């Protein structure tokens, strides 16, 4: 009898363990189904193991593929270096100094990273293009609106705030006594800073720069819109080969090549991330601003102000360009944007694309946060703080770029998907893109909760997860919802690849308007997207600045 009971218990426990494991693997299973399986299928069916031959030989495709790889490497490398050089000082300054309106200023400095890439491209086109105030002042500025230099500028403007954000994050640990110790031993401000914070901040900044490399290596919007074929990255070239040249096999081979190329930076990033993961008290992260100003304060402050001025100039130039029609300022472009002419040009009304974007954002945020909650709940039920290598799955969307993802999804699932359900593929791709950010944000809400809180609840007969963890980490859920929404709202690459006009999102609508040479309405649509993104960003910032997302 006892034996049977024992066996019954063991079976029940094993069953529960399997259920909780599956629950905790929800995001990983999603990624497996939506990204990994289609990609493997694509590779095995069409790619063959000779994919690397796309890079060899003297055919025009091989030569242009080598050129695209070169472009990706150069744009990725140079953008990463510039992002590091510009972002690190900003991060150090903001992390080490307290001043009035600091929270607002930090928000403004990191804003570009949260904006849709398309909006940033449009900001450089309007801010430095022909006829812009900057180009009238100095004609050389037009270089920043096109070609290689323009792409690097866009990538740097987009990614330097990421480096700054990472650097700031590394400065928020409790080290004030160490700083005081090195100062008392006679170290200068700079020497003291690098002795205590040097390793942490540089490692964090390198983490940001590694992501900057990956994003720029697989850059799509900037090379496509302001680069031209000579500056195409691998992503842009794959898109061009598939959509324009119809060379399916070459596209698949190059896609596999690109995914393999991105493994190394992703591993570097994950390793850096793992060294920076913190646990302990929810109150352990404190501000370590020094009590007196360094001699470098003023130049650093001036640098930050210059950054903000450039940012304000670039973003306002999008709005001004949208308001400019026939050399006067009016709402004409907005009226045209919502007119029948625009609808017939792109196949969807502007309002329709906005509603699509809002719908995608809503679904993506709900699904991705639900997956995150399942992950956390399963992990808790298994009494594990981390699932180790299983969580590496969350970073796969960094290895397989949005374009490759969309490519694989379209080929494997798109054939059997009825047209009216195409939105499911779009939303799936956007969820996959959002997973690395949202999972990290949710985790940031849970990992600082100390074990003693949970054990106290347990000994008092309560439910630690429901009574302590959820209330303490609920802000991370709200922010994750916002991040999910923001990522969906700005996602261009995968959506552009998958969507037919009926399912265009706002960024795709913007691009389509540009292709139709409706530049004014295109800028008007970019302005709408800019304001929608700003609204979400403000909501995220109001909820909590410590939750750092990774786009």
């Amino acid at each position, binding site marked *: 009898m006892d034996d049977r009971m024992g066996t019954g218990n063991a079976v029940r426990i094993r069953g529960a363990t399997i259920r909780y494991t599956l629950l905790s693997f929800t995001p990983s299973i999603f990624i497996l189904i939506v990204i990994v399986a289609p990609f493997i299928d694509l590779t095995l069916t069409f790619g063959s193991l000779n994919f690397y031959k796309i890079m060899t030989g003297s055919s025009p495709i091989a030569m242009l593929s080598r050129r695209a790889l070169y472009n990706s490497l150069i744009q990725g490398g140079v953008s990463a270096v510039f992002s590091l050089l510009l972002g690190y000082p900003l991060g150090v300054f903001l992390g080490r100094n307290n001043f009035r309106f600091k929270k607002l200023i930090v928000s403004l400095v990191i804003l570009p990273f949260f904006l849709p890439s398309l909006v940033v491209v449009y900001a450089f086109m309007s801010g430095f293009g022909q006829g812009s105030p900057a180009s009238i002042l100095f004609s050389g500025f037009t270089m920043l609106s096109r070609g290689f230099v323009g792409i690097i500028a866009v990538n740097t403007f987009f990614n330097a705030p990421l480096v700054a954000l990472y650097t700031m994050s590394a400065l928020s640990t409790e080290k004030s006594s160490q700083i005081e110790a090195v100062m008392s031993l006679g170290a200068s401000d700079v020497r003291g800073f690098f002795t205590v914070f040097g390793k942490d901040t540089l490692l964090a900044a390198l983490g940001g720069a590694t992501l900057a490399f990956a994003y720029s290596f697989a850059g799509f919007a900037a090379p496509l819109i302001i680069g031209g074929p000579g500056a195409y990255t691998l992503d842009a070239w794959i898109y061009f080969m598939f959509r324009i040249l119809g060379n399916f096999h070459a596209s698949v081979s190059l896609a596999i090549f690109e995914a393999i190329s991105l493994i190394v930076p992703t591993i570097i990033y994950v390793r850096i991330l793992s060294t920076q993961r913190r646990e302990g008290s929810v109150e352990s992260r404190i501000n370590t601003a020094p009590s007196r100003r360094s001699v470098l304060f003023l130049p650093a402050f001036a640098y930050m102000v210059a950054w903000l001025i450039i940012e304000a100039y670039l973003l306002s130039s999008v709005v001004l360009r949208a308001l400019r029609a026939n050399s006067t300022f009016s709402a004409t472009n907005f009226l045209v944007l919502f007119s029948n002419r625009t609808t017939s040009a792109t196949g969807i009304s502007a309002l329709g694309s906005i509603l699509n974007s809002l719908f995608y954002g809503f679904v993506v945020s709900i699904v991705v946060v639900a997956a995150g909650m399942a992950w956390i709940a399963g992990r808790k039920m298994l009494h594990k703080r981390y699932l180790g290598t299983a969580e590496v799955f969350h970073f796969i969307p960094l290895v397989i770029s949005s374009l490759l993802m969309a490519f694989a999804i379209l080929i494997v699932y798109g054939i059997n998907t009825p047209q009216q359900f195409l939105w499911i593929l779009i939303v799936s791709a956007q969820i996959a893109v959002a997973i690395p950010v949202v999972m990290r944000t949710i985790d940031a809400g849970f990992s600082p909760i100390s074990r*003693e809180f949970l054990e106290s609840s347990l*000994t008092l007969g309560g439910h630690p997860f429901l009574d302590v963890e959820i209330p303490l980490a609920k802000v991370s859920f709200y922010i994750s919802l916002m991040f999910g929404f923001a990522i969906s709202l700005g996602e261009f690459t995968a959506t552009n690849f998958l969507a037919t006009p009926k399912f265009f999102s706002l960024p795709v609508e913007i691009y389509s308007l540009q292709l139709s040479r409706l530049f004014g309405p295109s800028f008007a649509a970019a302005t709408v997207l800019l304001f929608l993104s700003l609204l979400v960003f403000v909501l995220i910032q109001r909820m909590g600045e410590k939750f750092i997302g990774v786009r």
Partner: protein
Amino acid sequence: MGKKYSERFSLREVSFSVEKGETLTLMGPSGSGKTSVLRNIAGLDIPDAGSVIISGKNITKMPVRKRNVGIIFQDLALFPHMTVYDNISYGLRVKGFKRSEIEHRVYELAKMLGIHNLLERYPGEISGGEKQRVALARSVAPAPLLLLLDEPLSSLDTHLRNRVRSDIKEFAHRIGLTMIYVTHDHSEGLFMADRASLIFNGRVKAPELPETLFNNPKDVETCRFFGYNVMHIAGETVAFHPLDISIDDEEPDFSGAVTSKGFEGEHTRVHLKIANTGESVELKFNRGMGSENIRVGDLLPIKILRKHYL
């Protein structure tokens, strides 16, 4: 009970009992296993061998939440998102008490501990001493059969610590609380104890009355923990308390050169190095014993007033 934590550390020979309404203190140096003992009793860790029995019931395998054993952690672990009232009432709420009962119990405890005017505040808005009282109220609100305290006063300054420990002791006696109190501070441990025990390297010694334990140390590690000097005199291992000495030119037990000296208020602390063995001993001279004339380098003849042969 026993539990192996790693190749280098395990709890062994942990066997003791606590009477109802009694406070047993468990003292030992850092890393000796004090907290591990509490975690095994609370059910946060499960022993590999042996059992935990409360009121005749074997609770070794019982889930933590069903044991009715309270615990106060070193950092108190007050829930930062709950007010003081919500923290204290938490254990009652999860056990399904009626609202009126909860209010009555919380106000009664808060009044007894002098924190009734803090009930609407959050843990981040109250002082260290108030936090200790809130943690105590939260733990005793569900009327636990046993309360475990893991160095709960370690974050307080000496003055406040003395006051709070006195309050806890008085409160525990008033409500008949059964407690196991863990600390590395022997004066705090002795003060709190009805009976006291020591733990070294995962082994717990049999509990005794605090006076007996302190005044009649039986082995070298107990002596060292209580600050006794242990030295070899005439082939025997002798322990003596730094206060149990006098300067005696005629019949000294040993002599040594003064290596350092400092006035500490209640007494003067002197360190000696014994010439022939090289051993160091610490001495304390009460006021009026002429310690003001002692200089570094002096050779002091010392008589031990109370020797403990080990």
